[in-house]
């Protein structure tokens, strides 16, 4: 469902550049990337999945909720 950048919602007053980056600008790495996945047909959990765009290897997955709490801590 998109890049895990969406975890870091800017402050409402953070300014245009911050919001533009949050909503529209995405890296397109050849290598490791962090995705947001949603277990829609199951428990409804959002996950941060770390995977490699070159090898398709999935290197890790954690609950987005845990990642978000870490980010805020």
């Amino acid at each position, binding site marked *: 469902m998109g890049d895990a950048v969406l*975890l870091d919602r800017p402050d409402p007053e953070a300014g245009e550049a911050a919001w533009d980056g949050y*909503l529209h600008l995405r890296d397109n790495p050849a290598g490791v990337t962090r995705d*947001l996945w*949603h277990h829609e047909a199951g428990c409804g*959990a959002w996950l941060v999945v770390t995977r490699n765009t070159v090898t398709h290897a999935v290197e890790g997955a954690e609950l987005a*909720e845990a990642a978000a709490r870490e980010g805020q801590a």
Partner: protein
Amino acid sequence: MRIDGKGLIDRGTRLGFTFDGHRYEGHPGDTLASALLANDVRLVGRSFKYHRPRGILTAGSEEPNALVTLHDGAHREPNARATVTELFDGLAARSQNRFPSLDWDLLAVNDLLSPFLGAGFYYKTFMWPRAFWEKLYEPAIRRAAGLGALSGQPDPDRHETAFAHCDLLVIGAGPAGLMAALTAGRAGADVILADEDLRPGGRLLSETLEIDGGPGVDWADTAVEELEALPNVRFMPRTAVTGAYDHGTYGALERLPRGPKRPVDCFWRIHARAAVLAAGALERPVGFADNDRPGVMMAGAVRGYLNRYGAAAGKAFVVFGNNDDAHRTALDLADAGLHVAAVIDSRHEARLSGPFDVHAGAQVIGTRGGRALEAVVIRHPNGRVESIAADCLAMSGGWNPSVHLTCHMGARPVWQEDIAAFVPPPGAVPGLIPAGAAAGVFSTHGCLASGAKAAREALEVLGITAAHAPLPEAEDAPYAIRPLWLVEGKGRAWLDFQNDVTAKDVKQAAQENFRSVEHMKRYTTQGMATDQGKNSNVAALAILADATGRTIPETGTTTFRPPYVPVPIAAMGAGGRGRGFAPERLTTSHAASLERGAPMIEAGLWFRPSWFPRGGETHWRQSCDREVRHVREAVGVTDVSTLGKIDIQGPDAATLLDFVYTNTFSTLKPGRVRYGLMLREDGFVMDDGTTARLGEQHYVMTTTTAAAGQVMRHLDFVTQVLKPGLDVSFTSVTEHWAQFAVAGPKARELLSGLLDTDLSDEAWPFMSCGEVRLSGIAARLFRISFSGETGFEIAVPARYGDSLFRLLVARAESLGGGAYGMEALNVLRIEKGFLTHAELHGRTTAFDLGMEGLMSRKKDFVGRTMAARPGLVDPERERLVGLKPIGPVKSLTSGAFLFEPEAEATRENAEGYTTSVAFSPTLGHFLALGFLKNGPERLGEKVRLVDHLRGYETLCEVIHPVAFDRDGGRARG
């Protein structure tokens, strides 16, 4: 001809079958191909392009020629390979691509025209005039060139898909695969052994090789017995692994023996922690003039038909090869008492002794005969040309390891000089280890050792230790080969038998500068037929390498892609056609609606009634107009259960709603309902709906039918990611509650006596809600209205939905009203300017909809920051208006563009568009909702509506979007 004493078939049982209407007999264990050969049927098909007569070439999956149509009528299955078609009693097969018959094919004239039909012919010839391509050239070419045809009827056969999981997937049950499965099975690993053939053993079935001093076949049978006794091993015969995908996922096609009430095939998705590829090798032909004549076959296939099926492919044989393996064919044939006229080995150093002439250093330069081989023409090393009478030529250009699966994730195979073949690239598919002939190991001993080793390596990675068991005794002959791709000379030397590609075509491609192997492939169509060039690609690229002065590794291979064998779309999509294509969501009023003759319309996965026809009504508009009048003048009932309902509870429920809605819900009093607008983070509208506060910490949110899933996903995201600390829970209750709208001046009258409550405006004012009891059942009542009339929505547990709907409709009818469907519901809401996803289409803002007043300034909410961008609040934006026709043309269409009355109707002059239209029986004219630049400031102006698509235009007046009862008094009072 059958040879007594040979073969693994059950000669005691006879199976009758037909080919092109002629009756033949075969035996259990036969394939269609072996049974045809045993009946001396040599001509089985016509080639794709030139309609040349073709016979059986191989004994396996790679067969390019013997493609037939199986079964009759709707069961028809085109392009089945006779070499892997298991014979059964009553099988009916027909040859393909011939007219009027296989023996006399009119389009064989193409073969005489072949000098004009070479590579690139279609590209060069049918360029002009352009319009002729679609109407004339393509249909004619398609008719002439082709394979079998589908029946054109719905497929009556059953197909299945299934999933499987294992520690180790072993692909192929030859000596390497069986040894790998034994090693892993004995170590206790969860093993799946998949083999394409109907009987395990691989090449052991086709050879006279011995293992542990006995026939190789006996060893294979014992191995399978042991494996089947192990509870941790699953053996899947008739299952071709078709593709290797990410994360250890493999596709596999299982073809089941035909039987009543049984699916014909099953497409498996196998997830394996590790895999061993023991897929064996495929023998490749040699290019020489007229090497496609029926009777010219692969050497390994000729001895396979003899040893496995007891079927002699001819009476007089010539063997032609460039490697020692071909010698086995001559020896086996001679042992069986068959006449081997000569063995031609292109290697000067070749040594072989047997009851036949051996011509070392000689080459086959052509064949003679008509629709069947009569003689083989050879050239001795001294240049002397000799013709040898034979009706079967067994040829071998060497063996190509079946590397396909190792290259499915983009890797290219590696050239190995000593075996003159490509072998799997190391580590190309994570967890997949090639073994045996697939890895370029050709001796029986080598295969057994390699299979055991591959299994141990694979298991080690999984943390399972497998014991070293002693290997069975088997031959370990070296594989000696000297490459021979093409015997130069006059005449056409065929490479790709299925697509009719010759060595000359490949050279011509090189000459015309299609030097890349990928370009050559596309220019000549080499390897692009259903067999994917399994036995011809390597020779073609070797000839290309030669023609371009490069080495074979420099030239490289084309890309290998799944599937390894053709997979019927019906198998891949099993369960997903007709009513199985998508789940269907039915409301509790579905049966009652159908009983009333309502046509149902899909709304997402839901089915909703469009209208409820009554006697005398012949057009949907009559029903719809009546239903609208029912609601405006009496009372109507409609099912609104499909709207998304999300139950939200917890101390922070109000905080959550304040954050996801633009307006405030924390200030809403319990027992009240409020309309809410939800934005995406980019500032555009996501959805709207009403949310009711049932208690201090208890809300029920409604979403539109279409966006229910999206809103649920959004709430998950907000509570887990953006506001992870909120103490709130929510769950979808859409299906738990059956909810019906009762709307119209007589709504209160309809409900009187049903509920344990007083429905007066004082007790139940507009936008109130609460729990009530209906005939003793706990129900919820909402005083809301999507029609603009006095309205109640009553929700009961879904199990009461059917009976409540029937009761409400009966009461409505007794009051001069009735049920209303989606069409009337739509008209009612357009009259009132209420929105649906026709308007909330993802490009509109609250400002565009005239709802900027709902954007709270006192709090943060999703979309707030971005919705304030100047471009999203520009008055020049296209904003919501109503429209009514004023010209002579009185109808309106949705999706039409709006222009200034005098402006030219071009895209750059467009000032807006219409989104919803309806005929309003209440107002007596058509109405539209749409978006117009600066719309709210243009009420009363004229605009021109032009529908380019439907060729329609009319003049309209811009009106307020709420066309009926603008102050809303009817809903409140």
